[in-house]
């Protein structure tokens, strides 16, 4: 294992190439450095690469702000879709798609949102309720925001942030389509969220990341992927987690998620937070493979096993990571 340092920049952990990594790299068209890392951390790496080469499963989340689960299921079956229940009551896998999912009347009416199960699981873990103040730190295009509003039954206060006005426009469309009315959307870099002067009961930080877990959706991500990107993302993610902690009420909960496999953006990022803050503790996430507690020669906080990784070849979702951080009530 090598940790590269050049001109003050710490690059991610890279591993020596092996005949196996060279073979898989050639067969699936990935850079060898990525495969070597995957072999180190991901069970059945070849099956993962097979899964990433095929079309990802499609899921919808039924918007109970506008319709009932049983009514929409009946309607979708009647117009020729085949659907399968998942572990979440309002999330279904589409096993046969007669028309484009994004062009049905039911979609336009806001009765469902096309959303991967992994994203829904992150929202589920946040355990929001109607009377809370909730923050979504990176809201565009609004999938998790609309689900949070649904979980809050359109009550309480949901603050949603995104730095891009263009992306906020698509968020706004989705909020309107889904009938969301408890949300205030700010065009803002989430590291400045404390400027709003609000403390939150719940914070969702679905952090911008290197997106290794969604390669099956967009193969071009591979062309723009390089070791330095992981480091760049990890630095930004740590700043965002610190900003989240700053605005969370004592006793409040933060759910941190990414759609990447890179430990630097997942367990290592959380590990550095656990080392810096004594009022933060990990709470167990329900679904997925245990988070890493070692990476190469690096040993991480043992509580990181309670964070979870979702893999396309094991869980049928996009690649995803979820950590749950409780801000402890500190008694003086």
């Amino acid at each position, binding site marked *: 294992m090598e940790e590269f340092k050049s001109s003050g920049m710490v690059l991610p952990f890279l591993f020596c190439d092996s005949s196996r990594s060279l073979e898989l790299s050639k067969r699936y068209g990935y850079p060898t450095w990525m495969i070597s890392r995957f072999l180190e951390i991901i069970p059945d790496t070849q099956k993962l690469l097979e899964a990433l080469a095929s079309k990802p499963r499609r899921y919808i989340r039924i918007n109970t702000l506008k319709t009932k689960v049983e009514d929409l299921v009946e309607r979708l079956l009647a117009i020729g879709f085949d659907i399968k229940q998942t572990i979440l009551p309002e999330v279904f896998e589409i096993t046969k798609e007669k028309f484009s999912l994004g062009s049905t009347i039911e979609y336009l009416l806001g009765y469902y949102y096309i959303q991967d199960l992994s994203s829904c699981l992150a929202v589920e873990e946040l355990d929001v309720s109607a009377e809370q103040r909730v923050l979504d730190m990176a809201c565009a295009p609004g999938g998790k925001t609309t689900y949070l509003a649904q979980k809050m039954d359109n009550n309480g*206060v949901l603050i949603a942030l995104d730095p891009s006005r263009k992306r906020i426009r698509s968020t706004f469309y989705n909020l309107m389509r889904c009938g969301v009315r408890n949300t205030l959307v700010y065009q803002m870099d989430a590291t400045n969220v404390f400027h709003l002067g609000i403390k939150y009961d719940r914070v969702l930080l679905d952090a911008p990341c290197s997106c290794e877990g969604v390669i099956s959706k967009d193969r071009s991500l591979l062309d723009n992927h390089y070791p330095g990107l992981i480091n760049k993302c990890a630095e930004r993610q740590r700043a965002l987690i610190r900003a989240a902690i700053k605005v969370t009420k004592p006793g409040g909960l933060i759910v941190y998620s990414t759609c990447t496999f890179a430990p630097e953006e997942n367990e290592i990022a959380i590990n550095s937070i656990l080392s810096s803050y004594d009022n933060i503790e990990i709470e167990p996430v329900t679904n997925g493979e245990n988070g890493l507690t070692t990476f190469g020669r690096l040993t991480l906080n043992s509580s990181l096993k309670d964070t979870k990784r979702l893999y396309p070849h094991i869980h049928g979702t996009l690649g995803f990571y979820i950590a749950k951080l409780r801000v402890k009530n500190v008694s003086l």
Partner: protein
Amino acid sequence: MSLYRKTSLQERTVLRRAFSKWDVFEYFKDKLIYVRTNNVGRKQIFFLPSEIMMTDKQPLYAGLLIGELGKQFSPSIQMSQIIAKEGKNFPSIKVNSKGETMVVYGRDVFVDSIIEHNTHRENEMVIILNQRNEAIGIGRTRNKSNHIAIKGKIAVTTIADIGQYLREEDLDV
């Protein structure tokens, strides 16, 4: 720069009249309504649940866009869905499945597609419902109701529909 503010007395009067016309006066009686002037100077009306607070810093968007206010109130698609759900007696037409498809592509409504209507006025704003009584658009009657029997004629001009945002991704709101 968007700016949210509470409604003025005059604006409230226009809104109350509109809510009565659309048979949702009772529904909106205790609701919090804000006005936002968008970057082209249009007054947009937003509905927020009463618990929500506004911070000192203005949001880009807050709540549900229910329409625009000029001399009169023009309901949004979201408002038409509230009307269809909460109202009982409001100007509407009901279209068949062919008409439904036309409307969500932004096309006007031909007489042949209309199954039911309760409007008898020319140039009146109506909610366009599908066969399940779901609001799929907002239109304006073109012909007098006695023309409604003439096949092949456009009876209602579609002015907003649920497919609009999808067709116009860069729609500035």
